[in-house]
């Protein structure tokens, strides 16, 4: 399993295509924080996001922050939430906005595999709960939009050595979650027979 360093937003699709499920990735550059209500606003309420999401890396988060001034925040504790709730936004994020990577914890169900392959997207698994470390890797909160959704706003973070992440679903139709679940279901049959 390879180790990669990728800078976001990406401009060259090959950066995504070289990643394989199980690989380790460290991220540099800028990432966008997003959550349930943010995506409900974009897709269910049809409001255009005031940030460019082309080639972007999205992080499922609702950060703990301290307000400094109008539109200015400093980090307190930034961690990652469970992704599965937000799987239905995967395809429109890819087709309408050109998002290339989604990062969260716990994985996406199998319905994300096909659109990610078709659209050249990846899912990155972060370690849920490891917020103390994650907070140190976020250098600065550069922008925030839709503050009225606090803390589920649209956030722009500058990161340094963000990770390590694991490629959970790659752009070639492979999902670690699918494979682990398939093996576990087989194993359960064996375990039940022993009970």
């Amino acid at each position, binding site marked *: *399993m390879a180790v990669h360093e990728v800078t976001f937003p990406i401009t060259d699709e090959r950066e995504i295509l070289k990643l394989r499920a*199980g690989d*380790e990735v460290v991220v540099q550059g800028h990432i966008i924080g997003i959550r349930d209500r943010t995506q409900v606003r974009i897709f269910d309420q049809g409001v255009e996001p005031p940030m460019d999401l082309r080639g972007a890396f999205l992080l499922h*988060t*609702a*950060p*703990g922050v*301290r307000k400094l001034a109008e539109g200015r925040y400093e980090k*307190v*504790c*930034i*961690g990652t*939430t*469970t992704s*599965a709730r937000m799987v239905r936004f995967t395809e429109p994020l890819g087709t309408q906005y050109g998002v290339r990577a989604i990062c969260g*914890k*716990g*994985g996406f169900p199998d319905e994300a595999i096909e659109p990610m392959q078709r659209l050249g997207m990846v899912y990155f*698994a972060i*370690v*849920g*709960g*490891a*917020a*103390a*470390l*994650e*907070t*140190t890797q976020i250098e600065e909160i550069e922008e925030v939009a839709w503050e009225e959704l606090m*803390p589920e706003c649209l956030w722009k973070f500058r990161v340094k050595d963000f990770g*390590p992440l*694991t490629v*959970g679903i790659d752009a070639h139709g492979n999902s*670690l*979650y699918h*494979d*682990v*679940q398939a*093996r*576990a*279901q087989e*194993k*359960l049959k064996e*375990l*039940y027979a022993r*009970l």
Partner: protein
Amino acid sequence: MSIDVTTDLQHTVEDAAAHLYVWALKDIPQDLRDALAAARERETSVPGKRVLETIHRNINVADSEKNLVCQDTGVAVYHVRVGEHFPLHPTRIYEGLRDGTARATIEHPLRSNAVHTITRENTGPNIGHRLPIVHWEFVADWDGLDVKCVPKGSGSENMSFLKMCVPADGVKGIKQFVLESIVGAGGKPCPPGIVGVGIGGSADYAMYLAKEAIMRPIGTRNADPVVAQLEDELYGLLNETGIGPMGLGGDVTVLQCHIEHADTHMTLNPVAVNYQCWAARRASAHIGPDGSVDYDREF
């Protein structure tokens, strides 16, 4: 009992709750650190080792930066043991716990998660109608008060399961349900954590007992040897499923399996599963009748 003693003791409970909530969020207990270190040694899968190594780094960063281990400050759950002769009524103990929770949330500040369950509007600094949640236990012939704070994160709480097995399903049915629940949960509850199982009583009581099970120090065993044996067996079986750290595949799926049980109706066989994530936060204090507080006494 004079009013002054009551007021002072209530303030003591409030101070203790405020301290315990923040302490639990920042400084995870030694038994958990040991269990995670052992898991790191034992894990052989590459993604699994990467996860456990990152958890290890995270705990160290939380220590050195004095930051929270996890951003989810959870729902504040308390387990309280009240001695028969402790000179403060439980109604006032509850007020102390509630006020301490709110104070810690405002002063730190901590992320406030509490919302009205229908309107979803925030209800205050991690308090609200019936929040925080308290599990009460009353102890005869004793004048002390034990308070344990367990901030319960939502990622793992969302992975809670109840099944009204029938008596004919027997213990086999119980084991199958626990196994299918944890496999189905996959990476969502932030494994490897503590699987709490509540068996018997009634539907609601089984889940209540499952929550008590996750609040125990890691690896403690049920006093009933039959139940303790089931804990050992389920712990082994769960770690054969291959779900692994954060559901990415591996040897360590759970750190422990704890069971609490109650006798039940001859027609019932309820089984509840409550999951506690790897950041199994927990902090406790003993309060004496004179208002003295000892933060080093685990129960």
